[in-house]
């Protein structure tokens, strides 16, 4: 037991690599402190992986990019790109910056310069687990360009 403790990671780091020991100690204390306050601060990352209680919402909102009359299917894009598309559209819709020049340029780069519109849809779920559309609104019509 004593031998095992002597050869443990922390004891070896303390003896052989003091800087690493200090970094690990600061990281562990910092992570614990922020965890106790349920707050995340880089580099003290918290990996809750959806551990916050998720309540059912009365309605769920989605934003879709419609390019040249055809809706972009998010699943057709790889994860990193999909995240950029979804977040760019929803963040700009929420921030009322859909008409901002830089965003417009980016969408044009993404869609190859084709006309586009951004559609907001609201859904509620039925007992079969299917989303039912309750409201549809074009939040960015391309023809105002």
């Amino acid at each position, binding site marked *: 037991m004593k031998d095992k403790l002597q050869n443990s*990671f922390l004891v*070896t*780091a303390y003896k*052989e*690599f003091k800087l*690493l020991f200090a970094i*690990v100690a600061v990281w562990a204390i910092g992570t614990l402190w922020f965890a106790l306050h349920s707050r*995340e*601060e*880089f*580099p003290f*990352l*918290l*990996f*809750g*992986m*959806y*551990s*916050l*209680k*998720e*309540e*059912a*919402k009365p309605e*769920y909102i*989605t934003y*879709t990019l419609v390019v040249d009359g055809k809706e972009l*299917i*998010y*699943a057709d*894009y*790889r*994860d*990193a*790109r999909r*995240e*950029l598309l*979804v*977040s*760019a559209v929803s*963040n*700009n819709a*929420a*921030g009322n*910056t859909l008409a*901002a020049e*830089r*965003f417009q340029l*980016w969408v044009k*780069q*993404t869609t190859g310069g084709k006309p586009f519109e951004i559609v907001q*849809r609201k*859904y509620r*779920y039925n*007992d*079969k*687990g*299917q*989303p039912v*559309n309750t409201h549809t609104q074009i939040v960015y019509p391309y023809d105002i360009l």
Partner: protein
Amino acid sequence: MISSKGFMAQYGLKAYVVFAVLLLVVIGRLTALAGFSYMPPVVPADESEAVYHWLSMLGLPQLVFSHSFLPVVLDVLLVLLPVLFLFTLKRGFAIGFFVLLLLYFFTYNMVTGHHYHGLVGAVLITIPFFTKSETRFNLLWDAVRYYWLYIFASAALWKILRGTVFYTDQLTNILKAQQLDLLVQQPNSPQAQMVQYLIANPSVSHAVLVVNVLVQATFLIGFFTKRFDTALSTLAIVFCIANYFVMNIVSAELLILNLTLVNWNDLELKLGKFRKQQE
């Protein structure tokens, strides 16, 4: 204990495997059009984390996009630096790649407004290659291994301590928000059908959540022994595959940390035998 010649052989093997995987991660991002060159403009928002707030005050990520050529240069460097490290094993290239990847990590997170953790694995696993000292390298490698265990173990502990593992509707409610686009855009796909079933049957989705927490909690064993590393490594792969099908989350980039659970002595022996057979 392995000899210093033995250590250098294993260092080389780890370096080739780790940086080849890192190169794939980078190429994967660039070909998905998610490199510096294809990022959307940032939407001004109050950053919740101090580091992001400071970076925002310093002008990031606008600084990256201030000249049209700069994002392209950074994308080229993202590929070039790991390639140069693979050919030379010079520490400077590993350090340069670490800094650039960290810049990409912050830029991507600020642009999306979502502090995504997936790239942390790729950033962290480069750190052991900052040194060629046997003791320091092995300690840093072990530290990264512990971080991989921490990710899973803490995810389980959070769900237990916050009580959400006992909340029957937890996964059902998460899926309603997380998979809305899939359910709306591809309702007839097998994945959407499965998600729809889980939403309609909270007791089944709750069982899935409990199994998920048990899998994550299993990683606590790794803090006390390395004997089960192979089993944990398999569990991590199974978790990431299940996470993709249920939650539509691709954890492949985080999975690079699984390399710290590989038995490298065993792998080296097998490679040695294979080489002899070839001769």
